[in-house]
């Protein structure tokens, strides 16, 4: 019987406050945007699924926040891919370390391993494009990475998750009639602050420039005060639709992390 072959790779879902307009190109749909951890290529699918049973699971249960910090064109000669570099800040080594684990595991199974250094990035467009226009259009944007997927390439720059290991998003928006509300997750107060700030930056990306790197917060009240100082500064300097983060909710322990219901007055 002929083996079923699939073109597959492992990657994490990527979310950002995507710009409404982008330069011309074969732009990936928002739901297809991801950060590849390991490209595996065309493989016998059943055999790979058997190997997948031994995949080293990520040591983190909450995803990453960060920013796109650079626009790349691959390959350097005659580029056909526009990619935005992903900077996950303090957790860069955590991501890189896990990526290395995946590569070793693939090598153990005699699967393809990329010899180049890991450069976390998200492909945004393929095909023909004007590099100058993409360079000019690039602005740093906040981002989140969550859920680990085994993706199948189904053609036309579309990808289908065929296996998923859940990794909670650093925050998720939920319904609030008058204001904006988020479920913010983090392993400690620093992460809660960082993820809450990224949630605000999804509404108003300019806010990131006013991040205050001073002392670590010691309580939820301090987190709220710190966030509000940033909101106020942003409003005074460039304007923001956000009024303030309200003194709402408390930290709740969920598995190995904390959750906080953040409500933002707008």
């Amino acid at each position, binding site marked *: 019987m002929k083996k079923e072959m699939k073109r597959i790779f492992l990657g994490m879902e990527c979310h950002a406050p995507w710009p409404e307009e982008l330069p011309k190109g074969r732009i990936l749909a928002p739901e297809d945007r991801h950060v590849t951890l390991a490209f595996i290529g065309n493989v016998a699918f059943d055999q790979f699924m058997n190997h997948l049973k031994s995949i080293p699971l990520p040591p983190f249960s909450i995803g990453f926040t960060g920013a796109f910090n650079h626009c790349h064109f691959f390959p350097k000669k005659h580029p056909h891919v526009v990619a935005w570099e992903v900077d996950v800040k303090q957790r860069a080594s955590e991501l890189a370390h896990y990526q290395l684990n995946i590569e070793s595991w693939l090598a153990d199974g005699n699967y393809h391993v990329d010899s180049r250094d890991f450069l976390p990035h998200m492909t945004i467009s393929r095909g023909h494009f004007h590099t100058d226009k993409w360079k000019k259009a690039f602005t740093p944007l906040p981002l989140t990475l969550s859920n680990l997927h085994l993706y199948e390439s189904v053609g036309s720059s579309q990808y289908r998750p065929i296996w998923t290991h859940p990794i909670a998003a650093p925050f998720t928006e939920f*319904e609030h009639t008058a204001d904006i509300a988020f479920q913010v997750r983090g392993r400690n107060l620093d992460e809660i602050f960082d993820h809450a700030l990224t949630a605000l930056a999804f509404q108003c990306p300019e806010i990131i420039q006013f991040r205050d790197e001073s002392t670590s917060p010691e309580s939820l009240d301090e987190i709220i005060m710190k966030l509000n100082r940033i909101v*106020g500064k942003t409003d*005074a300097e460039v304007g*923001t639709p956000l009024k303030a983060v309200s*003194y709402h909710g408390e930290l709740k322990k969920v598995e190995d992390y904390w959750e906080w219901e953040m409500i933002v007055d*707008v």
Partner: protein
Amino acid sequence: MSDLKKLREGMYLLPQEGDMLVPGLVIGTEDLFREFELERPLDQVRNVAHLPGIVGHSIAMPDIHWGYGFPIGGVAATDAKNGVISPGGVGYDINCGVRLAVIDMPFRELKKKTQSELIHSIYRNVPSGVGQGRKKNHQLDDKDYQELIQKGARWSVEHHFGLPQDLEHTESLGVIEGGNLKAVTSHARDRGRKQVGSIGSGNHFVEIGEVQKIFHPEIAEAWGLKEGMIYVLIHSGSRGFGHQICQDTLDHFVKQGYEKGLPDKQLVAAPIQSSDGKRYFQAMAAAANFAFNNRQQILHYVRKSFAEVIGVRAEEVRQVYDVCHNIAKFEEHEVEGQLRKLCVHRKGATRSFGPGAEELAPIYKETGQPVLVPGDMGRASHILAGLGNPMTWCSCCHGAGRARSRHKSLKEWKSRDPVQYMATQGVTVVANNKRTIAEEMPDAYKDVDLVVEAVNKAELARMVARTRPHLVLKG
């Protein structure tokens, strides 16, 4: 329908339970209650009933929805001597409010081209949207701040941003006494410096349209309202200045531990007679006076556009009234047969003094004050006359109230062009970004007709006229 008990048409009792100091009072109709999620806002009504010194009821208007500590559409009066004052009972946008002006000219006489020129001229003259404000030479220095805080809207009129008669047709003559710049941080001043005379973002707007229907011909005549005539409605508040004052106070109150004993930290409140309570009132009054000036100057620039585009003189753009709907005010009301000084918190609620009220200009002393109730940008807004109902401390609703979150509305309109859709409904919408328009589409709001019907039934205010928008500038 929760455990509400009908008291009379349009008025329901939320029974006192647990540590509530007073029962709740909910204005609405069964039709309206079926339309939206009531439980979370009602929990907030119950929470407000725990405020020390609260008198009468913790009150909810028919446009109630989930807010910060207090529900939006909430009213609570506390004893001025022994009660507390709560920034959450005023809201972040201190003295957010509405101003109405009319022009004695039928809207239908404006050709399509003129309508477009008019709204685009207003768009140029009145800064709107995130980060938009006045240029450097029009920014406030500390001397300006000092004066506008003392004088309220009169400061703008003295600086040629309006007419003296505007003041008489403004709630409290456009000034809340007791404002003090010393109670305001430099950070708040910096946030507001370039924002006076600008709309801001979110649900704030300038709207032009026609008076569509008159319900009460005598009052309409007394106020100079005619079917078909042009109206201008302005909705804005104290911008970043007020937001920062609210935030600074909340931070301070939380640090002082004033939330102890309250069921929700967001209700944090200081005794009115404490130095912290007095300081908040001074800062809040400063922000309220900033907001009166803000709407005064927006109207000035709207008048400028009317003059430029259709040659209408400033006096012909006649201000009907200006109301606050996020404010705490000291007022005297009768409590159990005795006149008492109360601090009335109206958060997403409008004062609705009835005929004979001391403060009102002679024209309104006869009729009750105008209560301005904006709906949404597609359907209608209402002009009511206050009845001074003592059950609600002479308060009424403030708008339609959101029925759907911004998030949901954005999703709903993601694949459609909201501007084009509004054009098919006969409304030209101009805004800095499409996102705001999508968030503010008419289907995100309750039907304002139902809200107004409820306050009419409960005898908080009577219906005078209904307006229909045609040109909208969104923040």
